[in-house]
C-alpha cells in the first residue's frame, strides 16, 4: 500500500484508471532527415542561445547605466512652444501623413489605406505568398516588396527625424529632458540640490499674524467655526486667502449682518472693531 512508504524512489502507480497511459502525441519533427545534424535543446542549444543573451544583457545594462530614461517637464496643455514627437518607431507613419494625397481630403488613405494595406499584407503574408520555395532570392516579388517597404520605412523615419532636428534648430529649442539634465548638472556643480520641477499647491500663509484683530477674533469665537488655523471646516470658508475673494467692504458687511450660517456680529462688536477685523481680513491674500 502507499501509506508507510518511505522510499525516496519514485512510485509508479499501476492500473490507476484516472491516469492515462503516457502517450506522447506531441512529438515534433525529429529532424531525422538530417542525421547527425541535430542536438539536444538542453544543454547544447540553450547554452549557446544564452551566451548571445549574456552579450546582449551586458550591452543593455551598460546602456541603462549610461543613459537614464528621459523625463521632461510636467504636462502643460497650455504650452504652445512644445514640438510633439511620437516614439521613434512610429515616426514613419507620422511622416507619411505629411504628404499630399495622404493628408487633407485624402487623410483616410494615410490613416487607414496605406498602413492598413501594408500591415494587412504583412499579417497575411503566408496566404499571399503560397509557393513552396523558401529561399528569398527564388521568390523575387515577395522579397522585392519587403525590401521596398523596408527602404521606405527607413527613409520616412530619417526624413521625419531630420525635420524634427531642423525644427529644433530653427526655433532654437532644446528637448526638455536635456534642459532638465543640464540644470540638474549645473546645480550639482554648485553643490545645490537639483531644482524641483514638481509644482505644489503651497498652503496659504496668514498675513500679519501678530495683528490685534486676530486676538479680537479669538475672543469672539470666530475661530471656533473658522478653525484655529483659519483653514475653515466643512461648509465653512477658510479665512486664509479670503482677501482674494472679497473686498474690505464686503467682509465688513458679512461680519456685521451675517450671511447664511454666518451669524451677525453687529450686536457683539463695535463698528470700529468690525472695521479692524475687516481690514485685517482683506489683507489675507495669497502670496505670489
Amino acid at each position, binding site marked *: 500500500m502507499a501509506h508507510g512508504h518511505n522510499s*525516496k524512489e519514485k512510485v509508479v502507480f499501476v492500473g490507476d484508471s484516472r*491516469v492515462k497511459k503516457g502517450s506522447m502525441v*506531441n512529438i*515534433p*519533427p525529429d*529532424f531525422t*532527415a*538530417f542525421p547527425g*545534424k*541535430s*542536438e*539536444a*535543446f*538542453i544543454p*547544447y542549444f540553450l547554452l*549557446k*542561445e544564452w551566451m*548571445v543573451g549574456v552579450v*546582449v*544583457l551586458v550591452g*543593455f545594462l551598460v*546602456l*541603462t*547605466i549610461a543613459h*537614464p*530614461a*528621459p*523625463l*521632461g517637464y*510636467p*504636462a*502643460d*496643455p497650455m*504650452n504652445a512652444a*512644445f514640438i*510633439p*514627437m*511620437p516614439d*521613434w*518607431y*512610429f515616426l514613419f507613419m507620422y511622416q507619411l501623413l505629411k504628404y499630399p494625397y495622404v493628408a487633407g481630403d485624402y487623410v*483616410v488613405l494615410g*490613416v*487607414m489605406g496605406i498602413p492598413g494595406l501594408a*500591415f494587412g499584407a*504583412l*499579417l497575411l*503574408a*503566408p496566404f499571399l*505568398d*503560397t509557393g513552396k520555395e*523558401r*529561399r*528569398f532570392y527564388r*521568390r523575387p516579388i*515577395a522579397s522585392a516588396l*519587403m525590401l521596398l517597404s523596408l527602404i521606405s520605412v527607413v527613409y520616412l523615419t530619417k526624413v521625419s527625424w531630420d525635420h524634427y532636428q531642423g525644427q529644433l534648430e530653427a526655433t532654437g529649442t532644446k528637448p*526638455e529632458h536635456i534642459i532638465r539634465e543640464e540644470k540638474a548638472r549645473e546645480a550639482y556643480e554648485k553643490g545645490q540640490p537639483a531644482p524641483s*520641477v*514638481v509644482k505644489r499647491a503651497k498652503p496659504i500663509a496668514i498675513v500679519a499674524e501678530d495683528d490685534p484683530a486676530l486676538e479680537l477674533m479669538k475672543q469672539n469665537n470666530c475661530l471656533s467655526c473658522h478653525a484655529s488655523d483659519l483653514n475653515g471646516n466643512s461648509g465653512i470658508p477658510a479665512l486664509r486667502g479670503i482677501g482674494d475673494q472679497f473686498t474690505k467692504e464686503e467682509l465688513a458687511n458679512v461680519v456685521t449682518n451675517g450671511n447664511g450660517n454666518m451669524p451677525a456680529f453687529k450686536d457683539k462688536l463695535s463698528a470700529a472693531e468690525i472695521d479692524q477685523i475687516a481690514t485685517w481680513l482683506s489683507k489675507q491674500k495669497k502670496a505670489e
Partner: protein
Amino acid sequence: MFKGIYNWIDERLDITPMWRDVADHEVPEHVNPAHHFSAFVYCFGGLTFFITVIQILSGMFLTMYYVPDIINAYASVDYLQHKVAFGGIVRAMHHWGASLVIVMMFLHTLRVFFTGSYKAPREMNWVVGMLIFFIMLGLGLTGYLLPWDNKAYFATKVTLQIAESVPYLGPYIKELLNGGEIVGAQTLTRFFAIHVFFLPGALLALLAAHFFMIRKQGISGPL
C-alpha cells in the same frame, strides 16, 4: 532533500515527462551560431522574449512607485527616478527595453520572412507573431503617455487626433481612448489599465500560443 520533494511531487503529478520533453527535444544544428556564425540571426526570437521578460519585471517594479493620476503621475516618476536608489536604472531598463524589444522583434520578423519560415505548415504561427507585433506597438503607444510630461501629453494628443480621422468610427475611437472630451485624468487611467493589464494579458496568451506552435512544429529546416 530536493530529490525527496521532487519525487513526492512526481509520484503524484508525473512531472518528469513535461520538462524532459522540453529539455531533450532535438534542435537542428543549422540554427546554432556555434556551428555557423551566420546562424546568430536565429537568436532574435529568443532575445525578444528575454527583453520582454525584462520589460514585464521592470514594469511590475515600477508600479510599486508609480500612480496613474494627472496630479501625482509626474511627481511619482520624478521621485522614483531621482530619489529612489537604482530608480534611474530600473526606469531606463523599461524605457530602453521598449525600444530594444521593437528592434529585436523587427529583426526576428525579417529573419522569418527572408528564410521563408512562415510558409506551410507555419502560417498560423506567423499570424500569431504579427499579432504580438501589434500588441507590442500598442504597449509602446500607451506606455508613452504614462510619465505625463509634455512629450507624453502632446504625442498622445496627436495620436488621438490621427485616430479621429478614421472615417465614421474615428470620433468614437477617440472618445473611447480619451475616456472623455479631453486628454486628461480619464485618459491617463485608461492608458494605464490598457498598458498594464489588457495588453500584457493578451501578450502572454499569444506568447504561449507562439511557443506551443514552435514546440509542436519544430524549427524550420535548413534552406
